[in-house]
């Protein structure tokens, strides 16, 4: 079914797709260049005082251009320069074995595993809530206020409570962090899925009624497929904040491993380069996760005959 659908003439030709990509490359390049330029300017301005003071303390007289270059090579700069961050990223990913505690990949894996577990739990909780809300009218009124108020509590306040409570009953490590992720990410899933499950128009629903379709048949053959485009929007948000949840979950525990632990250790010891490298690691991981969800969406929507945009 899918293969034939893919070969339809109405799909954009590869040449057209290439042209579209070409059109994007210019602006993207300009934006990246502007960000890098801004970053270097910030590095120079923010590190200037510290660098100049350090030279003064050492009793060394340096020219302005020497100070300028030195602002970008500080060991513990206020704001590390891009090339310092990337050198650190390279050192901690490529040059360090994955098994080492100094490897950023190791820490990223620790965070990723609880992110994925939390995301899985969040998807489960979020969809169960959505399906119940759509099918039981009273649940919408009774559950929705709680669901919404759950998201108004700052996660930084509730994260330590979850860790401590679960720790007191002997649950430590991966699971409490995953719970925090799930707590954050079920929300967009529930909201988007409720919207999606109720999206079929009256005619599409009447059709099912004329067939005397059961509730389950209406769910599987109409409501669920209709909800998928909505669900994927929620999933993309959910997977990104699931990662945030996992990182936040690592902060209050003084966890030994994970991107959150790396951030915390960096700030304890003033290792700004390490902090920035961990931040970039987290951002890259989040983009990767969102891209994966996007890929799944593309694959699924193609097999469901979605009109190419």
């Amino acid at each position: 079914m899918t293969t034939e659908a893919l070969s339809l003439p109405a799909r954009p030709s590869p040449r057209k797709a290439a042209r579209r990509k070409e059109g994007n490359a210019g602006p993207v390049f300009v934006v990246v260049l502007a960000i890098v330029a801004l970053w270097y300017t910030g590095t120079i301005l923010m590190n200037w005082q510290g660098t100049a003071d350090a030279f003064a303390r050492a009793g060394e007289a340096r020219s302005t251009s020497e100070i300028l270059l030195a602002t970008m090579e500080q060991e513990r700069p206020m704001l590390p320069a891009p090339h310092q961050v990337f050198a650190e990223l390279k050192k901690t990913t490529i040059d360090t074995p994955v098994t080492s505690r100094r490897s950023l990949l190791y820490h990223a894996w620790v965070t990723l595993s609880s992110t994925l577990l939390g995301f899985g739990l969040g998807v489960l909780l979020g969809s169960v809530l959505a399906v119940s809300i759509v099918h039981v009218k009273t649940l919408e009124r009774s559950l929705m206020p709680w669901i919404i108020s759950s998201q108004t509590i700052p996660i930084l306040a509730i994260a330590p409570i979850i860790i401590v409570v679960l720790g007191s009953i002997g649950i430590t490590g991966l699971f409490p962090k995953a719970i925090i992720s799930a707590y954050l990410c079920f929300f967009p899933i529930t909201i988007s899925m409720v919207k999606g499950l109720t999206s079929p128009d009256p005619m599409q629903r009447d059709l099912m009624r004329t067939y005397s379709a059961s509730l389950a048949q209406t769910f599987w053959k109409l409501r669920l497929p209709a909800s998928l485009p909505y669900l994927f929007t929620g999933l993309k948000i959910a997977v990104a904040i699931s990662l945030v949840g996992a990182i936040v979950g690592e902060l209050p525990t003084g966890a030994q491993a994970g991107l959150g632990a790396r951030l915390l250790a960096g700030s304890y010891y003033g290792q700004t380069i390490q902090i920035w490298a961990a931040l970039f690691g987290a951002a890259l991981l989040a983009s990767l996760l969102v891209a994966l969800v996007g890929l799944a969406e593309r694959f699924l929507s193609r097999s469901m005959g979605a009109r190419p945009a």
Partner: protein
Amino acid sequence: MKPKGETVLKRVTEDFMGDSGAQPGLSAEPGLASRAPVVDIQGLSLTYEAADGPVYALSNVDLQIEEGEFVSFIGPSGCGKTTLLRVIADLEQPNGGHIHVNGVSPSEARVRRDYGFIFQAPALYPWRTIQKNVELPLEIFGIPKAERNERSRRQLELVNLKGFEKKFPWQLSGGMQQRASIARALSFDPKLLLMDEPFGALDEIVRDHLNEQLLKLWDKTRKTVLFVTHSIPEAVFLSSKIVVMSPRPGRIIDVIDASHLGRERKLEIRETPEFLKIAHRVREGLRAGHSYDD
């Protein structure tokens, strides 16, 4: 579309009947007189509560439809023609009167899958191919895959959509989509077809073409068709019987027999005196029933 939920639809006492414009004077076709009518409606009324007071969607409607007839319902918007069709389909609940579909209540008929309903829009599910859309009711009825494929193949051939099985709805024109929805309704071979302004959204050329095809289909399959429209030529061209309705309250004001135009009709008959005579009577009926006080 009328509000359909039972919560919206408040049951109102049946005391409103007013001056009934309903004319039960229907003569069953001679050959079919002995059989029970496919649709038997007596004193049917339906009222629902709107923001500004009750709306009398249907008032004291009497109607008998025999097997094999092609009955058109025509009237201005708000005359209850769609509501009447939806009551027959058990998509709306009447407040009063009696209605039997194939000798049982509409809800029993629906559960028995006695009818196929064709909506104003094709209402194809966009994530299913045309073939899968046609097979949707068969899947729900639990018909095995091999037979599903065979039936969808046959029905798509019948509506001239052979070769479009693997396409998705958006790849077809509006007229083709509506033909696919007719194939879907035919797939489980119901004796009764309920069509709610199925060609209303299509341009006239496509509509003419589909009207001819529908008539051939009706002649071939010998189904009973109930067809809601607001086009006089369409109603006269298709029907063996035309039910003219009028709004506020929704009621039947005339029932016109057009069976003498024959079962096989070409578009050219629209120029004939017989055709024009019936069209004139429909127009007269519509004019008489139209209330000018608003």
